[in-house]
């Protein structure tokens, strides 16, 4: 079963990474790539599935496995909720040695029952992990029986860590939604509008949706469901009645967008809310597709007007910072679509991007990045080994590094400014407001007087 799913996901025709691969590479799928023992980094498929589904805020997320999978990881993300908080609780079967010997299915069934009795969620998502997968616990069967007997959807998320990377887990999470959730309920027919959209691959990190929703509200565009940012289970079941899908975050959930188009004829476009230009382009595309789906044509003019106003307002707020950031050098170390979506934003500030890492970026991402870097191939790099990164920063080749938590201390120990732009970040950077926030944070980081103090040698180290 899982094997078929994996094959299906690997063959995703709209996935640019797949298109670029040779037939032999395709056979290998995206599971094994980059996993060299002793030199591997990154989360497992379960991690990816959890990232993609945990933002469903009103359900219980139950992890079937020993303590490692949930005990070390619960409540560790900043996806926000505008209401329910159940998603932040950590539920796990915490398998013991005896469970491993006798099989964990019974315990899982009991755990599901307990959780429903105590917390009354609209649904339970059950995550399979390595150990129960290895001993052959049939999570699907338990979920099926539970759904039947307990009268509440209990949904198996079959993405045990060892099948592959985080990215694969994202996709398997998408398949889970397609198989068990999306399209399982119908909205009131009067409550379907051509201006209803879904945001696919948006996780409401640090409440970023709050920076986007006011714009959409003003245009009369409604989010049927975030997939899965700030999502309620019920909204997801009915989100197949949206008119337009916007696909964020690169390829992570492209299977959802494509299959929703196939099954329910919902057109989708790819876009990003990072950066001024990107936000405006996303709004324009969104409006155009809504009109194509039957929305009143004046939506386009209204969108243009909103964009003009917001861009001007945004620039007004950014300008004071831009003066202080102009000419400063940035090392951008992220990957995927941020490879380019953030570059354009930084260029808007007059900053110089000395390098951008194109790890996990598709050919399209790379082309976009190269274009933005004016064809300078040297500026596009793969992974930078930590010692080299440390050297670059210590020797002042960049004034600030934007990256994820993993490399935070390489920058800090090199006494260089650092800003988190990955999932553990503390501030929201989406839309026009988010851009102002990002610029403000960069300004605060790079111009903080602390750098002079921490770079100065101790008095006894100064040669007379």
């Amino acid at each position, binding site marked *: 079963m899982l094997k078929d799913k994996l094959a299906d996901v690997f063959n995703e025709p709209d996935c640019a990474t797949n298109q670029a691969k040779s037939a032999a590479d395709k056979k290998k799928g995206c599971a094994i790539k980059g996993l060299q023992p002793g030199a591997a980094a990154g989360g497992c498929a379960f991690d990816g599935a959890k990232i993609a589904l945990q933002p469903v805020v009103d359900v219980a997320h139950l992890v079937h496995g020993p303590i490692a999978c949930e005990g*070390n990881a619960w409540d560790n993300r900043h996806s926000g909720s505008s209401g329910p908080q159940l998603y932040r609780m950590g539920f796990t079967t915490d398998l013991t040695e005896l469970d491993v010997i006798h099989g964990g299915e019974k315990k899982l069934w009991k755990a599901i029952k307990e959780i429903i009795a105590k917390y009354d969620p609209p649904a339970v998502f059950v995550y399979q992990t390595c*150990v129960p997968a290895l001993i052959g616990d049939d999570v699907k069967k338990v979920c099926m029986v539970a759904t039947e007997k307990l009268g509440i959807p209990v949904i198996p998320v079959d993405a045990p860590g060892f099948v592959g990377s985080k990215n694969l887990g994202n996709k398997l999470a998408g398949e889970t939604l397609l198989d068990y959730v999306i399209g399982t309920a119908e909205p009131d027919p009067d409550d379907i509008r051509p201006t209803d959209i879904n945001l696919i691959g948006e996780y409401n990190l640090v409440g970023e949706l709050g920076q986007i929703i006011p714009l959409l509200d003003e245009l009369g565009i409604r989010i049927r469901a975030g997939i899965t940012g700030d999502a309620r289970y019920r909204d997801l079941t009915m989100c197949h009645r949206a008119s337009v899908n916007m696909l964020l975050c690169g390829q992570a959930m492209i299977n959802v967008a494509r299959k929703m188009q196939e099954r329910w004829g919902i057109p989708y476009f790819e876009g990003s809310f990072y950066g001024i230009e990107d936000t405006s382009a996303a709004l324009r595309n969104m409006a155009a597709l809504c009109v194509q789906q039957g929305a009143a044509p004046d939506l386009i003019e209204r969108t243009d007007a909103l964009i003009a106003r917001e861009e001007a307002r945004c620039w007004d707020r950014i300008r004071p910072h831009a003066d202080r950031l102009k000419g400063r050098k940035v090392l951008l170390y992220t990957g995927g679509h941020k490879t380019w979506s953030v570059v354009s934003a930084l260029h808007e500030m007059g900053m110089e991007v000395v390098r951008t890492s194109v790890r996990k970026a598709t050919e399209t991402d790379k082309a976009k990045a190269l274009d933005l870097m004016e064809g300078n191939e040297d500026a596009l790099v793969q992974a930078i080994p930590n010692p080299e990164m440390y050297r670059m920063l210590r020797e002042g080749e960049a004034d600030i590094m934007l990256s994820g938590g993993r490399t935070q201390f390489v920058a800090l120990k090199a006494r260089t400014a650092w800003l988190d732009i990955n999932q553990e970040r503390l501030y929201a950077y989406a839309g026009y407001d988010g851009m102002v926030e990002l610029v403000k944070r960069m300004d605060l980081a790079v111009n903080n007087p602390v750098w002079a103090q921490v770079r100065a040698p101790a008095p006894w180290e100064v040669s007379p």
Partner: protein
Amino acid sequence: MNAAVLTPRKAASVNPLKSSAPLGAAMAYLGMAECQPLFHGSQGCTAFAMVLMVRHFREAIPVQTTAMNEISTILGGMDHVEQALVTIATRAKPKLIGICSTGLTETRGEDVGPELKILKARNPELADVGVVFAATPDYAGGLQEGWAIAVTALIEAFVPAEKLPTDRDQITILASSALTPGDIDELRDITEAFGLSAIVLPDLSGSLDGHVPDAYQGTSYGGTTLEDMRRLGASAATLAFGASLRRPAEVLEARTGVPSRVLDLPLGLEAADALIVALTEISGRPVPNRLRRQRSQVVDALLDSHFYYGGKSVALAAEPDLLLPWARLFAGLGAELPVVISTVNTPELAAVPAASVTVGDLEDLEHGAAEARCDLLVTHAHGRQASARLGIPLYRMGFPMFDRVGNQHRVSVGYRGTRDRVFEVANLFLESLDHEHEGEDGHAGSHTAPG
């Protein structure tokens, strides 16, 4: 009166209190000099453990994985182990690679230990690298158990089984996972006050104490060296802090003949006294004046603070090594402990000064605290949700502590550590006292005149 230990039969652990055993083992390895911990398992376990340690210590955490997948697990993962060792040895050039297994590889039942010799023999890259293996399945125990297993493995691998001429001024300290780098520094200071020098195993104070080295290093920065390990047999005594270290202490004593004592974490007046008594006996020297003064400061702290602890009801959750001294500290100041939660069942739990101890999770803490209308929650950072829901203040201690900075320097041991922690908690009680009065009569601040 002995505390009754309750082990409820819950199928779902809700809001886990426990971190995993391999994480504990890896953390112990990080207390070794120039070490690279290696998880034998699938990559996700390593990533989660690393992220959690990064968030707690706010340091780069150099951990690696053998990157097992479904097929290699079924076929056996020795070639993954071999490849990982060689890759790490060539890239990071560590002095030591500490392997811990995970639930995945233990489920298949792979015994890596005996094979290490063969791997070392056929790979010249590994000639100068120490390699050690700890069996730490995720499904048995938690952080402190994994840590202790790694400490035992280190002793068995690197401490020669022979008696060395005794150096009367040297002692060995076996450190529990419950000690912070700051705690270890404090223990070393106290030891030195008696003219003794301590070799600490594992020693997080050199590696995860948050300092800024002058060059990039891909392994742990400091910590116990293999050279130190070879000298443990010359110590006059071994002091193990935390009952979880009973087994490593026994193994060390059996190998070297150095007499060992297992003490509680020296947090609280009596526990700190026990440490001082032990050091007096080992060194044969009187208690230095500095420490006498410090003891008197603890007595004063207890006097000043007991008003605010008396009659308070506290809900406490931690691993046993940490649970016991904190429970005694609260009980010793007149607070009640209607809710006490442990990660695992150990013989020491019976000594907790409470009616019962539950082996459970933070849901048990939350429900218990609500029912008993507790005044304070005491646990690690994950208690924050319960605290917010119940409106009961949280005093953070233990691992993980991901929403506070400076964790590595928090000292809770010895007289100074005890004094500071007693005051800190008293101030929390004082603060809620202020809030209560604020609610009652609207005169906020009338009790907070600077004193």
